[in-house]
């Protein structure tokens, strides 16, 4: 383990991660890597079947043909969310083939990936670069993983692939529809799950690319969200995933009165401060509060006769309804959170558009859609009085969530964190967040059931909110009140010295590190 240094955010971070140098966070938009982007190896069509049939007999055969080696990095993707069957099958097969010390680089992991613990224990897997929650989060937090976990945002994964920090040796893409050439999409087939944008970078940059499908169609498979000329082999399996599992607890509208109140207050805030106006745009992804926000906002848009230019997904039934009822011209979608979203993307492709992290989130892009948004509503596990926020660890210090697109969305014109002011007894607004994931200078509003706090950096917003019917309070007022109620501030969790994971900022620098949890 390398020495820890203090980064520009005052956090102690490693300067070396899994044997490679790492750059400490230098401040928002301060770090600019130079040079040329990474590229895949040169291939020749002469080495691929002229009839375009790349289908091989089994996943194992495809892996053997690609060539496997100890220490390799394997990329998989989370468009099936908790219903993914492919990642486990791939790693199980690699284990059977005797591979050791591999690195798993999923675009996100879910509880269905708990069996990976076995491969970490046995030495097949060295470490994970991607989100870790549930049993994987516990495993990493307990300090049992041999390598350092690396958590990146969706955009950060693309940035890391493009600047060569994350090299994918082998990508395996689960595709609900594919042709023998390797063209693939996620919007058709019995197990359609939505767009395949999270797999796009892997398809372009990995050394080898395998498409696994349970719905092989004759060439051409359109739309080709993944293009066959980037694909080495196609494997047909019985079932690649359960699309019903893309709907999870976080894609239901909240029924809690407190959370409904938060959503209602944010909607009124957005309407009354003038953010909601003809031609505006917003993003409201999964999460009970954000879904409820979209519903409340829709009613206010109806009353005011306002139409949005575009809404960014992950899409849900609620956003699809808004599109169909004329409340927005477009949905720009990176992932679908329910089957209504999948159907809409398939049947209404001129208005419900497939976007990828390359268009919206990538630090190495020449601009991103995310920064064009008039407002975005996100969650957080903790915030502090300087508006810094945590989205990956619980207040006891244990890894709990991935970063997702959260960091990438902070660049919107008005970033609103929707959080209850306390959970059980634990205050959400602390003096210092356990893990820093987003710098306070990018977070404009913290919205709780006890009122809305506007970042003092945003005097314009404070001015615009003067006649708001929602209680506007300082973040200190809310934090102090909650401390009185809960008997806070809580004790700071005592964590071990060992660093178990690094949190990357969108530019690839290290914004914070996660320490070993003692309780686990």
């Amino acid at each position, binding site marked *: 383990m390398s020495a820890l240094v203090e980064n520009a955010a005052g956090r102690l971070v490693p300067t070396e991660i899994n044997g490679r140098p790492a750059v400490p966070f230098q401040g928002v938009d301060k770090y600019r890597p130079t040079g040329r982007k990474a590229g895949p190896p040169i291939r020749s069509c002469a080495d691929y079947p002229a009839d375009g049939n790349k289908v091989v007999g089994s996943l194992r055969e495809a892996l053997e043909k690609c060539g496997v080696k100890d220490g390799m990095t394997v990329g998989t993707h989370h468009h099936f969310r908790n219903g993914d069957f492919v990642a486990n099958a791939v790693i199980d097969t690699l284990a059977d083939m005797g591979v050791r010390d591999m690195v798993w680089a999923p675009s996100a992991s879910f509880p269905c990936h708990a069996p990976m613990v076995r491969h970490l224990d046995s030495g097949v897997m060295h470490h994970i670069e991607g989100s870790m929650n549930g049993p994987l989060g516990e495993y990493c937090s307990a300090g049992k993983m041999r390598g350092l976990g690396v958590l990146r945002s969706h955009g950060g994964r693309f940035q890391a692939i493009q600047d060569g920090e994350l090299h994918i040796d082998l990508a395996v893409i689960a595709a609900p529809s594919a042709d023998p050439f390797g063209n693939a999409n996620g919007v058709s087939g019995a197990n359609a799950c939505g767009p395949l944008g999270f797999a796009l970078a892997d398809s372009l940059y990995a050394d080898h690319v395998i498409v696994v499908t349970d719905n092989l169609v004759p060439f051409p498979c359109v739309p080709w969200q993944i293009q066959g000329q980037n694909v080495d082999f196609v494997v047909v399996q019985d079932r690649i995933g359960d699309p019903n599992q893309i709907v999870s607890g976080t894609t239901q509208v909240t029924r809690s009165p407190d959370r409904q109140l938060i959503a209602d207050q944010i909607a009124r805030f957005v309407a009354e401060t003038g953010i909601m106006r003809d031609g505006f745009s917003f993003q409201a992804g999964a999460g009970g509060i954000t879904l409820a926000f979209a519903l409340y906002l829709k009613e206010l848009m109806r009353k005011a006769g306002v139409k949005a230019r575009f809404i960014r997904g992950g899409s849900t039934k609620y956003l699809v309804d808004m599109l169909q009822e004329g409340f927005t011209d477009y949905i720009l979608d990176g992932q679908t959170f329910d089957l209504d979203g999948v159907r809409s993307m398939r049947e209404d492709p001129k208005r419900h558009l497939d976007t990828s992290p390359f268009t919206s989130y990538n630090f190495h892009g020449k601009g991103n859609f995310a920064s064009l948004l008039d407002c975005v509503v996100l969650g957080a596990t903790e915030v502090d009085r300087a508006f810094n926020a945590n989205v990956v660890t619980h207040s006891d210090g244990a890894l709990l969530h991935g970063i997702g697109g959260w960091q990438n969305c902070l660049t919107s014109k008005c970033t609103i964190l929707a959080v209850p002011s306390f959970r059980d007894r*634990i205050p959400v607004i602390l003096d210092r967040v356990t893990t820093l994931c987003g710098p306070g200078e990018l977070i404009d509003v913290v919205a709780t059931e006890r009122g809305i706090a506007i970042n003092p950096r945003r005097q314009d917003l404070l001015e615009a909110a003067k006649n708001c019917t929602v209680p506007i309070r300082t973040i200190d007022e809310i934090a102090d009140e909650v401390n009185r109620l809960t008997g806070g501030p809580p*004790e700071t969790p005592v964590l071990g010295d060992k660093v178990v994971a690094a949190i990357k900022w969108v530019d690839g620098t290290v914004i914070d590190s996660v320490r070993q949890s003692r309780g686990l």
Partner: protein
Amino acid sequence: MTRQGQAGRQGADVRSDCHVACELRDQGGIDLAVESKVATMFGKKIREQVHGVLAEMKVEHATVRVQDGGALPFTLDARVEAAVRAADPSLTRGTLPDPIPGWDGKTRRDRFRRSRLYLPGNEPKFMINAGLYGADALILDLEDSVAPMHKFAARYLVRNALRALDFGGAERMVRINQGSLGLEDLDVILPHNVHLVLIPKVESADHVREVDERVVRHLGKDHGVLLMPIIESAKGGWFAYDIAMAAPSVIALAIGLEDYTADIGTQRTKEGKESLWLRQQVVNAARAAGVQPIDTVFSDVADAEGLRASVIEAKELGFDGKGCIHPRQIPIIHEAFAPTGQEIDKAVKIVCAFDKAQEQGLAAVSLGSKMIDPPVVKRALHTVQLAVACHLLPADWKSQEVSS
């Protein structure tokens, strides 16, 4: 003799509450075990607080087991005290934790009571944020929503809630139990700034006076605690006027229909013709006595349109308020009780005419060629206040009226 007591709820799904089991002993000091899902952040504070309450109650030897699902301090305090008292009722405590600033706000006899939100008296999680929803009143309920085994502990929780929680602008109400149990409820919840006591199943004026006398015993003659008897039986309906006149502290009559329909030998229906007599009786008795008639709860939380229709019907019958059991019912009730645009325009004209007459020292108020009777003026003043409360008229409408 075993001296054991317990309070609170147990189980993995318990949130914002805890269970405390206490066994008093004659020696051995305090043996405290705490299991908490917030132990990492609050373990030390939980132990300190439990020891503090035990010391306050002069308990020196006891085994105490706390299973905590994230209870806030006001809940933990109440659970420990209730468990100790259940083990030995003779143990009392000296001082209580300080109340929050602003807890001692007063109420007014004639304030709006459009919505009143029932909160089960043994469920801390529903109480904590109840003040945020803008209800005209919050009722901490010790009666029907509390199971018999929890009645004792609920009193202490309600008392602590009255001192520790911010009720916002809501009137602070407690529904006590029937009979002697209800009088004992008062012994715990007074004097913690209870604005109003709801008395269930009232059938006679004596019943009200009994409660009033118990309040007087605690707080003296001009106690300021308001009473709202609930009429929910045939007999109570028959004596409604006497009940409303039983004491000066009575400011409203409420109605309960579940018990009433059973009492008259029928069932509750959606259209409610079986209870029409009682509803009109209560409105008449209340108005005759100069107090507010308040309608029953609407219990189907999912049926927003049914609630709206029910409130409009209540308003048409003459009721001033409606009970509710979920925060999402509050805005619907307020909207339905809100005066219409026409009603507001007319009321504003009458109030302006009244002001003008006052200025000119005239006894009679006239609007155009019409004379306006005093009760009409009073009604208009009420409508204007209601319009302001419903944000349909700015609070400073008079200055705007003058400038325009």
